[in-house]
Each structure stands twice: as structure tokens, then as C-alpha cells.
């Protein structure tokens, strides 16, 4: 029961601030599982997070954990766990009969964690980082024995396979006969029940019955589960279930349903009357029913929230306080102000600027009540060059066009021509001076889109020769001979799926199929670091808006937070049930949003690694994310062509933008947040009225219950549709003056 055990320990670890030893245990076991099968590990921990340790089944689990710990000779942890869980020795003893002595002892473990601690003391990071180190020193004992069978063994209690259809159709008849208001709610049961019954049949080798069952009832399921059903239908043998990630997800995570108390009572009564044990068992075992008081929800309300792999988010999952406000901008010091004034003087109107500046300053001084503390997470100090850049940016911002429904932005399209290798990702620097593309042939190419050519720094020998006291030393260190419009960066060994510039334009991050994230210097155009840890394709990476930190996520379902000067991740965000397809930093750098193929968006707290928001409602893998500039909202786009808008503070969906006919690969808010631009595979850029979309009143009732009424006003919000020339739009960027840049590779086919 390894997988389940890990999760349990980890959740314990999260709840209480535990001593080091237990942290090690968590790291140890989860690490072991990860190296064996990353999917199992992440889903397991996801499940663990969801599961609260109550009920009789939990004790079994705890016992199993104890057993595992003993086997690994982690005696201290055993004691702690026993003490905390209040388990008696006898119980424990009775369970333990085969405490196999594993190879690596506690001593080596201890060493490992000491090493880790010393390594990472500077980072002041908690267990998350240590877990990773510990993972590398884990004994391989557990690896050989796949835990899948144990996971699946929950399916062993079975009824008569021939009766499954009867059970299911009995429930179906019941649900169809109840009052309309309850029917929609209870219909949510169909899909998880169907899946679990089918899997039980398959697991118990009733292949024929399973097939008949599938064919009879698969048509009843909501159309947005089509993709999952396709996977299911291919699976007809117990052997297939091993290593199938989707199944592990179904099993290990409880499918969450939200049902009103009335409806739930109805269901319960029905099942008790009919003595329908099979279904009741499944509901108990695999479903989590989140009961609320009040009016049952309507069909459309349910539909808008459902669709994710593990059902809806529980209400309490979105209750944590999120500091979504922006950080106070650092005040620019006097000498820099002077410089600014000088520049103004040159322009010949020195007076006008003054009051405006004060205005800006006072605005900055007001502390946003929703903002996190300035030093909630340590941010890098501003360098002089950063300050200069800030000033530039502020100057530009004064010339920014105020967008609105009547003043739409101009759009420039950057077309990548002759990209036979396949363009997979694009990023543009904040000041729009550089554009970089990641290609399927493992290269990263950087172009300068201003007349300023790209130059390398001179070699060390040449650098010795230059006059270091000269005013223009920064200019002198550049090697004029290397000036060119574009540079190619070689280093990856797989398609480059994610790419991100650092805010100061000195670095570039790229994530690739080869499982690494690489940091490149844009001064020398060489690779500085290869961050290894994902071991599976890394789908996306992004720099924090303040630099230094970055986040990456990929096939292993764990998003990692890194700092550029650490080769190990600082945080690991586990919980998604399928690949993490896109990652995005909150503007205040305190949170990270991840979109996943499990059709949820999660928001993670960088400080403690907790998942603070789960947004369900997408019906397909999510491929793009964008935070509004004020940090209050997040938009997400998926393969179904829909863009959903979320209110972070309330944890609610507040809008749905329908219009695209293919995957939305790019989302971006204008600099002031009035316009949301979306770019899609269908070769269009669409502009949406973000202000109007966010102008929904969230009353207390909605906020408390999470029952939302989405206005169907996509057409009103759509401000324009702009066609490209058979070019999918894979990146969007607003310049500091609110000119919209779009980018994509021209596809001649």
C-alpha cells in the first residue's frame, strides 16, 4: 500500500509542523515512489491531500504506513507516528509479520538529510527541498514491487458481475424518476459510478461483462468525458490496468461531487431501500460527496463546474486566504528621479511632469489590503540596471494608449518563416526588444527585433585588456564582431516546449522534452545551468516577474519552483492528476498557477507549497494561463477553445468566453487589464472586453456556496476577431504602450 501510505504521511506532515525526522520520511517514501513511477507518486500525494484521516479505513492505512516504516528501519518515525495516531503496539504487531530488512539503514538516511540540510540551509527552505535530496538516497527496495496491484486491490470486493448492469440501470431509473431539481444533481453520479463499475469488472476479469456494460451505458455520459471514455474503452484486461495513469487517478483520487443535502438524502434512502450495496460501497470508497445545505443546483450550474478528471473542487479547497494584491513598487531613489527630470527637460516641458510623478508615488504608497507582505517571500534586490529599466518602463507607460471597447489595440504579427523544424514556443521580453523561439529540433533561437544587434561579451583574455574605469565599460565589454540579428542556442536534446525571458533580459529559460530546464545567458549566449529533476518532458517554464525564481511543470505532474542559483528545486507542487501543461507566476510572485491535462487550474502558494485554489470547469487540457495585471483574476484557455475567467479572491469562476474553434495557446491581458487577448490554433486573435467580463457582482451567498450563475454573454464581450494567414497564434504580448504583438510559425501545409 505504498502509494497510499506516502500520501498519508505527507498530509500529516503538512497539517502539523513536524520534526525533521518525519519530514525525511515523507521525502523518503514519496521520493521512492516518484523515481519508480512519478504518476503514482503525484496522484498518491494528491489523494492524500484530499483525504482527511477519519473513518475506519484510515486506521488500516496508518498501520500499513507503520509497517513500511518498520521495514525501512525508520524506528524514530515509527514511534512518532504511533504516538500521534494513537495506535497500540498490539494492533501494530498483529499486522507486522514480514518486516523485511531493507538494504539502506537509517544511518545513511540521516547522512543524506544532513547533507541536504547543509546544502540548502541558505535557501531557508523547508521539507520540500529536502525531500528531493532524500529521494536520491532512498533504498530501492520498494521499487521492484509495483504498488499498483495494491492500489487496485480495493476492487476485489465484488458482487455478481451479471448484476452490475441491473444495479446501474436501477440507479439510472431512480435518478430519472426523481424531481427535476434533484435529477441534475444526482446525474453527476453517473460518470464516476460508471467508471468504477467498469473498472471493477475489468479488474475481476469479467471482460465480456465489462464490454457489454460499457457499450450499454457509455452513451449516457456527458460528452465532455469523451476523451476519458476513449481511454477506458481501450482497456479490457486486468493487465492493462497496471501502469495506466488514468486508472490510478480514478482509484487514488476520490471523485468529488457537490450535492445538496436534500438530493443526497433522496439517494441515500433509495440505496438503503433497495439494499443496493454494490453502489453504496463504490460511493463510500471512491466518491467524495460534498454536501451543502440549500437549493439544489441547476444543470447549467453543474455543467459549468464539472468536467475535470477528479470532479469538482471541494469547497474548502478554495477557502484559504490568497493575497492576490500587488506588491508595493519600490520607490525609485532621488538620483534616478533627477535623471528622469533631465530627460523631461530635454523634451522641453519640465513642469508638467512633476505633479504626475507625485501622483504615481502616492498611489504606490498605499498598501493594498489584499497584498502579501513585502517580504513574504524574499525577492532579489533591485540592481541599478533594474531601476533604470523601471524608469524606462514608467516613461513608456505614460505614453501608453488607454484601451477600451472603442479603442482597440493595433496588432503586429511576428511570423516565424521557414520554421521547418517546428516552432513550439515563443516568448517576448517585457520591453519587446527580443523575441525567442523554441523549436522541435532542440534549438532555441533569439532574435533582436530592434535595430540593436545581439552581441556576445568578449572572451576573458580580451576582457583583461579593456579599461575597466571607462564610463562606457558596459559597451566596451561587448564583442562587436559577434553582432548579428539572431543567435542560436544549442544544448537541449528534445523539442523545446517552454521558453521564458528573465525580466532583466539577461537570462533565458527553456524547458524541453529531454527533462531538463536550461538557463542561458543572453550576454554570452551560452548555457549556464541545466536544471534536472523532472526526468520527464517539461512542458512549460516561466520566470517570476521579479526574476530569480522560476517555475516548471511537465509530464511528471509535479510543478517545481526553482531559484536560478540552486540546482535543486525549492518547492515541489504535487497534486495534479495529469500532466502539468502550463505554468504561470502571479504578478506578486507569491503564487504560481498551473494548468493541467486533468482539466483543472491550481494555484499554489510559493511560501509553503500549499495548493490554495483548485479551479474546475474546463473540459479539456489547459494550455494557457494569464493573470490580470491587478492580480485579482486569472484566465485559462483549453483545448476546447474556451477561455474561463476566475476570481482568485473568491475562488470562483466568473466568466466563460466562447468563440475559438481550437486550442487556445496564448492569453494576455493588456497592460491596464481592460482587454484580454486570446490566440488560438484556429489562426485567430480575439479581443475580449475584460472590464465588462469582470464586472460581475459576487454576492456573499455565491461566495459562500460557490454556486455560480454564468451569464452567456461571450458575444457581447467579444470585441473583435482577427484572422492570421494560416498561422496558429502561440504567443501574445502587449508592449508597454499597449500595442499587441502576436507570434506564430507560418505553416504552409
Amino acid at each position, binding site marked *: 500500500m505504498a502509494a497510499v501510505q506516502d500520501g498519508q504521511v505527507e498530509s500529516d506532515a503538512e497539517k502539523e509542523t513536524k520534526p525533521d525526522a518525519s519530514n525525511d520520511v515523507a521525502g523518503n517514501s514519496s521520493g521512492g515512489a516518484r523515481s519508480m513511477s512519478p504518476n503514482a507518486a503525484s496522484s498518491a500525494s494528491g489523494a492524500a491531500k484530499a483525504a482527511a484521516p477519519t473513518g475506519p479505513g484510515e486506521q488500516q492505512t496508518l498501520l500499513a504506513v507503520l509497517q513500511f516504516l518498520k521495514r525501512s528501519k525508520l524506528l524514530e518515525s515509527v514511534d512518532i507516528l504511533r504516538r500521534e495516531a494513537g495506535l497500540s503496539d498490539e494492533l501494530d504487531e498483529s499486522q507486522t509479520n514480514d518486516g523485511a530488512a531493507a538494504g539502506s539503514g537509517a544511518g545513511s538516511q540521516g547522512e543524506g538529510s544532513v547533507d541536504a540540510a547543509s546544502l540548502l540551509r541558505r535557501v531557508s527552505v523547508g521539507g520540500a527541498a529536502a525531500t528531493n535530496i532524500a529521494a536520491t538516497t532512498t533504498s530501492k527496495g520498494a521499487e521492484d514491487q509495483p504498488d499498483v496491484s495494491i492500489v487496485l486491490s480495493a476492487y476485489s470486493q465484488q458482487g455478481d458481475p451479471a448484476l452490475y448492469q441491473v444495479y446501474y440501470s436501477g440507479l439510472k431509473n431512480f435518478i430519472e424518476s426523481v424531481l427535476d431539481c434533484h435529477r441534475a444533481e444526482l446525474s453527476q453520479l453517473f460518470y464516476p459510478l460508471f467508471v468504477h463499475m467498469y473498472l471493477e469488472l475489468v479488474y475481476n476479469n469479467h471482460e465480456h461483462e465489462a464490454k457489454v456494460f460499457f457499450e450499454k451505458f457509455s452513451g449516457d455520459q456527458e460528452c465532455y468525458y469523451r476523451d476519458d471514455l476513449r481511454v477506458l474503452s481501450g482497456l*479490457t484486461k486486468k*493487465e492493462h490496468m497496471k501502469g495506466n495513469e488514468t486508472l490510478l487517478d480514478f482509484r487514488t483520487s476520490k471523485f468529488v461531487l457537490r450535492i445538496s443535502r436534500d438530493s443526497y438524502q433522496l439517494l441515500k434512502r433509495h440505496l438503503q431501500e433497495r439494499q443496493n450495496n454494490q453502489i453504496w460501497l463504490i460511493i463510500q470508497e471512491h466518491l467524495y460527496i460534498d454536501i451543502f445545505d440549500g437549493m439544489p443546483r441547476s444543470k447549467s450550474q453543474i455543467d459549468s463546474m464539472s468536467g475535470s478528471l477528479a470532479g469538482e473542487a471541494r469547497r474548502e479547497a478554495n477557502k484559504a486566504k490568497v493575497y492576490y494584491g500587488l506588491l508595493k513598487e519600490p520607490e525609485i531613489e532621488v538620483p534616478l528621479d533627477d535623471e528622469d527630470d533631465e530627460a523631461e527637460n530635454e523634451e522641453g516641458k519640465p513642469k508638467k511632469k512633476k505633479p504626475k510623478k507625485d501622483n504615481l508615488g502616492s498611489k504606490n504608497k498605499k498598501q493594498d489590503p489584499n497584498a502579501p507582505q513585502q517580504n513574504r517571500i524574499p525577492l532579489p534586490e533591485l540592481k541599478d540596471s533594474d531601476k533604470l529599466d523601471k524608469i524606462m518602463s514608467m516613461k513608456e507607460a505614460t505614453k501608453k494608449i488607454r484601451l477600451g471597447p472603442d479603442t482597440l*489595440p493595433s*496588432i503586429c504579427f511576428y511570423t516565424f518563416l521557414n*520554421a521547418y523544424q517546428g516552432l513550439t514556443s515563443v516568448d517576448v521580453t517585457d520591453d519587446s526588444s527580443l523575441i525567442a523561439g523554441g523549436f522541435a529540433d532542440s534549438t532555441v533561437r533569439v532574435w533582436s527585433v530592434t535595430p540593436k544587434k545581439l552581441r556576445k561579451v568578449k572572451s576573458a583574455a580580451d576582457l583583461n585588456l579593456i579599461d575597466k574605469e571607462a564610463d562606457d565599460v558596459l559597451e566596451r565589454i561587448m564583442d562587436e564582431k559577434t553582432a548579428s540579428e539572431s543567435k542560436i542556442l544549442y544544448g537541449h536534446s528534445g*523539442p523545446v516546449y517552454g521558453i521564458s525571458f528573465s525580466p532583466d533580459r539577461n537570462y533565458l529559460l527553456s524547458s524541453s522534452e529531454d527533462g531538463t530546464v536550461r538557463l542561458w545567458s543572453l550576454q554570452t549566449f551560452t548555457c549556464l545551468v541545466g536544471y534536472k529533476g523532472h526526468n520527464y518532458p517539461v512542458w512549460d517554464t516561466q520566470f517570476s516577474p521579479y526574476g530569480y525564481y522560476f517555475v516548471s511543470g511537465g*509530464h511528471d505532474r509535479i510543478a517545481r519552483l526553482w531559484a536560478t542559483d540552486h540546482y535543486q528545486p525549492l518547492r515541489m507542487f504535487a497534486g495534479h492528476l495529469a500532466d502539468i501543461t502550463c505554468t504561470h507566476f502571479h504578478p506578486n510572485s507569491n503564487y504560481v498557477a498551473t494548468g493541467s491535462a486533468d482539466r483543472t487550474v491550481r494555484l499554489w502558494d510559493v511560501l509553503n507549497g500549499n495548493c490554495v485554489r483548485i479551479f474546475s470547469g474546463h473540459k479539456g487540457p489547459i*494550455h494557457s494561463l494569464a493573470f490580470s495585471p491587478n492580480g485579482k483574476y486569472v484566465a485559462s484557455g483549453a483545448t476546447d477553445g474556451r477561455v474561463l475567467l476566475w476570481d482568485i479572491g473568491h475562488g470562483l469562476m466568473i466568466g466563460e468566453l466562447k468563440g475559438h474553434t481550437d486550442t487556445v495557446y496564448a492569453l494576455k491581458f493588456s497592460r491596464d487589464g481592460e482587454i484580454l487577448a486570446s490566440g488560438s490554433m484556429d489562426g485567430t486573435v480575439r479581443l475580449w472586453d475584460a472590464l465588462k467580463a469582470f464586472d460581475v457582482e459576487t454576492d456573499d451567498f455565491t461566495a459562500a456556496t460557490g454556486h455560480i450563475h454564468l451569464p452567456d454573454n461571450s458575444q457581447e464581450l467579444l470585441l473583435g476577431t482577427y484572422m492570421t*494567414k494560416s498561422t496558429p497564434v502561440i504567443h501574445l504580448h502587449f508592449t508597454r504602450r499597449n500595442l499587441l504583438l502576436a507570434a506564430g510559425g507560418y505553416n504552409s501545409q
Partner: protein
Amino acid sequence: MAEREERRFAEVSRDSVKLMAESAGVEVGDEVAALLAEDVCYRLREAAQNSSQFMRHAKRRKLTVEDFNRALRWSNVEAVCGYGAQDALPFRPAKEGELFFVEDRDVNLVNLALATNIPNGCAETMVRVHVSYLDGKGNLEPQGTVPSAVQSLSEDLLKYYQQITRAILGEDPHLMKVALLDLQTNSKIAALLPYFVYVISGVKSVSHDLEQLNRLLHMVKSLVQNPYLYLGSYVRSLVSSVMYCILEPLAASINPLNDHWTLRDYAALLLSHIFWTHGDLVSGLYHQILLSLQKVLSDPVRPLCSHYGAVVGLHALGWKAVERVLYPHLPAYWANLQAVLDDYSVSNAQVKADGHKVYGAILVAVERLLKMKALSLSKPAEGGVGGQQGTAGGVLGFRESSPGLSPPPEPLSEAGLGIASHLQAGGAGCPWEDWTPVPLPAMYCELYSFFGDSLAVRFSTGPELEGCLPALPCQPADARKETVANAAAGLDNSRKMPQLTANLNISPRPDGSPHTEPPPPSLAKVAGSNPDPPRLQRRSSSSRPGQRSAGPSRDVFPKARFPPPQAGPPSFSFLIGGRQMGRRCQGRRFQTSFGPQPPLASLPPRAYAHKLPVIGRVSKPVRRWTCSHYSLHLPL
């Protein structure tokens, strides 16, 4: 077991498994094979599902072999090598047995290595930016076409451009001719069009150099005649360049020795040519042209050479333009001109010479106006038939007077009247709204009062018409009938009247247009639309009999206006194009000749005439006269 399943997924049969096992030297039983087959299918599906992930992240719609290999590699299966090519891999069936295989041809490495036609390396990956939408609206370039960035100038094109411009603007007349000819026939210069248009717009900077102006105009002509070029909105720019040559008091005209008159004549011809072949590319172009011509004409401050340009421009645009713009202006203008002509002072000699030029041009224009008017007016007398003929005569007369031109201008002036009515500022002449055709006798009388006998003298050169026109005022009805008869009988004669319009006949290269060459088709059309059999036989011996049947359906189905298949083998596409051109315009002429008639009769054709530009736009290439093979693509 489950048919649905089998239909939904690719299946590997147990026979295949057995075969593979055999080839690997293993004997497997039926049961094992069946189990293996099923497992293989499942694994295949799994790999396919995984591979789709790689496709999605590469932001593609097409699943490649590469994607599949990645999925295999990540599930610790050896990748399949050798299928990485982008092209589709066709399956071929083998003769014996139901075996399909991917064709895998041997590659001769030696040949490949020694091959001389080494393919050029792939072009470098680059980023191009273009403003797609300004302020969220307006599309600067037409959508759906190949991105202009893609066809950004290649080295070769750039070289071509330099060579051509150098040749055309250079010294060597022979080289220039070659260059112009190539410009007229080259099919690959679409990307250069904006550059050429830009060069041509340089007319304003060389207004002192007649020679250069002339060359640039020739360049316009070549571009306009190139069947492979879609001029699009560049027409406007070309027209403005040409108008510049027609109307502006060029620096070159200060010297009386410079023959800028010829330049103006040629430019006027070119203008009407552009208009009749490409006029529908830009809406309202005709009226803009008319308006600017009118403005120049009504502006007494302008020098006489500008007035001259306006008159020849109007003349080139057809007699209706003359009737609507020049004729109403004539009384006002006449006073000015008279003053110039009557001034015998020495200092005025040059101006007076210019005045005579203008006088001559007006005379020629007015004269054709009268002739055409007479022909068209003869229609009411004889009903529809006469009308047709009158117009037909008009065609011929026009054709002959301006050989470089394609169809006559009447139709659009009719069609666009509504548009022009509000464009017109109600200034000089008479407003378009209440413009009513002046009866021919009145017109003749008025013109006679200006030109006196010189008008009659000119007419006397046309022997057949001579008697009838001066007689018109007194016996209009008879005269009209006679006119018709004359027109019918004396078509050849009227074609022999170049001396009348010598002034306008200066098309420097009569080889230019295919329309000079096939008058028979145009005749045939006249005949086709003419329900009167004997006349048809008589007049158009060259016409095809099949057309008669096509005739009646024309009003209803404009698109049926094509020559029936037997009109000629499609291989003579050139001819078809020419005819078709003529035919289409014949259709328009046919419409407009009904113009003065009661609205009931004229309504349907008018509607059709309005639609015409639309149709024309859809099937753009048809308008190009030499673009014969395009015309076959027109949906029939």
C-alpha cells in the same frame, strides 16, 4: 467480439502476430497469439494516446512519426526509425496475398553524391513582423492569401527589379522594348508590383523629362496588360500617375518644342484602357476620374494644356463622358477659348497655338459625340433592333477611333450614375440628378453655333453619314431611319475614318491590344443579340450560328453569355478571351442602350448592370484581355 470496438481502433490480427513470431523463430499457439494481439492493440492505442500529447505541445494539428517515437521512447520501447520524412507514406498492395507495405525505394548514394543539381539549403529561419490590424480594425492586406512576408523579395527578384527598371529608364530603346515585353508577360512578378507602382508614382519628379514620362507610361501599360498580375488597389495609384501626365501642366510643356500633347494623348488612352480593364477593382473610380477631369475643365486658371488633357481624357472615356461633362461645360468654356483664339497679338501666339489644340480636341470629341448620339438615338425609331444596331455602330466607331482601347464606356456611366449623383458637388455644368439627354437636334444646333461649318466639314468626310446629320434638325425621324441603314450598310466605311480622329490615334504601338484585332467577334455579338435574322446574316458573315440560340437567354442569365462550345476549340483560348471580353461588354452596352427608355423596360438590365462589377470581381482574371486561359475558369 465487439464490432464497434473493431471499427473504432486499428486491430492487429492474430495471424500477424503468428507471422511475426514465426519470423522470429518462435512457435505460438492460437490462444497465445490472440492474447498477444489484443495486448499489442492496447499498447498501440496507449502509445497513440501518449503521442498526441507531444503533438499538442508542439502546437500542431498533425501527428508525426516523431511524436509517436517520442511516446515509444518514454515507455521504454525502441523507436521506429526511418519514417521521419514529412511526406505521406503510401501503402502499396502486393500482388500475392493481402499484403500491404510501404514502398521503400533504394537510394543510389553514388548518384546522390555526384548529383549536380544540389538542392539549395533550406532558407534560414527568420522572424518577420507586419502590422496586421491598425487600431483593431482594418486589414492592411487581403486575408487568406499567402503572407506577403513569405514572398518577401528573393535575391533573384531583386535583381530582376533592378535590371528591368534600369532597362526601361535607360538609354537603349531596344533593351527597353524587351524589358517592357517581359513586364507584360512575366508571371512571377506579383511580389514586385508595389515596387513598380512606386517607381511609376515617380512621374511627379520627372515632369521635366518627356522621355522618362513616356517610358513610365509604357511601364504602366505593360503592367496593366500583364495577365498574371492582380493590380488590386494599386489601380488607384496607377491611375493617379496617369492622370498626372494627362492633366498637370508639366514642366516639359513650358518649352513649346516639346511634344507633350502626344504624351497627354497617350496617357488618356492608357487611362481609358486601365479603366475598362481594371476599373471594377476600385469602386467609384470612374466617377472620381470624371470629377477631376471636370474640375480641371471648369477651372479657367489652369493652363490650356491641362484643359486639353481634360478634353482628351473625356474623349478617351467615351462619348457619354463627353456628353455629360464636356458638352454642358462647353458654353462656359467656349467664351474663354474664344477670347484666346481671337487675340492676335504676338505675345499671345503660343497660347493661341495651344488654344487651337484644345479647339481641335473639343471638335473631335464633340463630333464623335454627335455621331454616336445619332446612332444611339436612331434606336427609338426602329425599336429595340435599331437600338442594338446603333450601339453596334457605336462600338465600331469607337473602336476605330481608339484602337488601343477595349470596350466602350457607356455601361458604367449608366451603372454608376447613382453614385456619382452625390459625388457631384452640383458645381459646373448640370447636376447629375437632373441631367437629361439633350435631344440630338438641339445638341447639333448648339454645337453648330460654336463650331460653325467646321463641324459640318468634318462630318463631310464620312460619306455615308454626311447627308443625314446636318439634315437631322429638320427631319429627325427619317434621318434616324436612314442613319440606321447607313450604319448598317456602311460599317466598313465608318471604320475607314481614321483621319477624323487622327489626333487621338497616336497609340504608339498598335500591337498592344488584342481588341484591335478581332472586330469580327464584336460584330458577331451584335448579331447574336439581334433577333433579326436577315440582317444578322448579312452583317456578320463571320459570326457563328450558335450564337443566335444564346441570344434570348442573355438578359436572364448573364453568365450564359459565353460562346457555346462549338464557338471554337478551347485551345484557341486567346480568341475566347477576347470574345468573351467583348461579349460581356456587349452585354453592358445592350443594357445601357435601353437607358433612355421607360423605367419598366430598363429596370432589369439596370439591376444587372449594377451586379456586373460584383460578378467581375469574383472572376477577376476575365477582365484581363490576354488572360485567356483564366477566362475558362469562370464558373459557367
